[in-house]
């Protein structure tokens, strides 16, 4: 009987671990997606498909800072694989570099938020913030379809 209880307890804790790691993967995916979603408006403005809107740009930059602050904690040691993650093993091999990339994105977003006052300063500063996406994904993310 005791054996059965222990086995059940192990099974339950294993299930919780699996649940927890897919949970954190889902959370970080949602968080990164919120950054992508926030890019839609300024992206359209950069392409000339939407009129410049300072409030929307500032909201996006605030979202970036929020994501950059929260994201690193969601790449836990137990979430290297599973849950259809596209995080590259490099994230854990070089956690310091990975965190530094988020800090740079955060700092660039903050600097852009201070510098952007009108359409001209938006076009001059915003692309610099966007460069962080590709640079970080190049190293820390695997290809995915």
């Amino acid at each position, binding site marked *: 009987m005791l054996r059965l209880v222990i086995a059940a307890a192990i099974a339950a804790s294993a299930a919780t671990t699996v649940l927890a790691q897919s949970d954190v993967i889902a959370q970080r995916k949602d968080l990164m997606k919120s950054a992508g*979603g926030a890019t839609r408006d300024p992206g359209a403005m950069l392409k000339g498909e939407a009129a410049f809107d300072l409030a929307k740009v500032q909201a996006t930059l605030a979202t970036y800072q929020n994501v950059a602050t929260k994201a690193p904690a969601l790449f836990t040691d137990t979430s290297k694989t599973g849950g259809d993650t596209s995080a590259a093993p490099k994230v854990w091999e070089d956690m310091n570099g990975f965190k530094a990339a988020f800090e740079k994105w955060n700092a660039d977003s903050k600097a852009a938020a201070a510098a952007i006052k009108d359409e001209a300063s938006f076009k001059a500063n915003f692309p610099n913030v966007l460069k962080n996406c590709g640079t970080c994904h190049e190293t820390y993310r695997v*290809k995915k379809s």
Partner: protein
Amino acid sequence: MKKFAVVLAVLAALGAAGFWLLTGPATWAMLRGDGNLAPRGVRSTENGRTMFYAGGCASCHASTGQDDKTKLGGGLGLHSPFGTFYVPNISPHPRDGIGSWSQADFIRAMREGVSPDGSHYYPSFPYTSYQRMTPDDIADLFAHIKTLPPVEGRVRDHALPFPVTIRRTLGLWKLAFLDGQTFKPDPAKSSELNRGGYLVEGPGHCVECHSPRTFAGDIPADRRFAGGPDPEGQGGFIPNITPDASGLKAWSKGEIADLLKTGFTPEYDSVGGSMAAVIRNTSQLTDADRAAMAEYLKSLPPRVSPPKPKKGS
């Protein structure tokens, strides 16, 4: 018994001689290829620059451990199921790079996958695509590379298991999988579609990554551009870029061209892995060239993606 041994030895010698004959670059050139190796026009380093970025040379050949993508000292390790290939120095350094090469050497390397000393290159160098380029574009590319800084230092040898180490066997591989034909524009199609086809199939070498390969390392014709597991490992899956529902069907031509310019998908996801380096190159092309590439990708026959491998937990 002695006679039997003699016969066996003769047969072995004939076999070896046959292998040697069959696998030489000259045999390939005689049986395959269109012999289109001589440029006709006047050199343009401006067009060479376009070819350099369309071809993504720096993605593999840029010196490792530094950020200047015009320094082509090589050193990158390409991990593949066949072993690890170390990308050579193609800077115009006369001793360590390709500075002492003739234009003809360079065209032959690009179109036939043969080094100036007559040995076969491994198709990790995508001459299977570069063979589609015209000698004029390749000569312009060579002229452009000559304007870049020479970088000292030779790169280590490839780390390959036997028998992949025998370059001569590549002669057979080439007879099977390298047709040596320059891109043929289709006069019935628009000049934009032909330009896009040339850029995608030739210098762009998109098919080399965006397709599954067989155990022999070739790409089945009916699987071209359909994506598949990342041969560089890490559990990545390379997207299908045909206009199938599992590929780019929902993407407009403008959205594909935008991705090639900015690296952002229509959902403002930013592409990662080695595609980020591809974007650094395609962002240097003209809007017209990116639109042409998009037009061509939209014209491909739709093909379903290979099944995704089950992710381990």
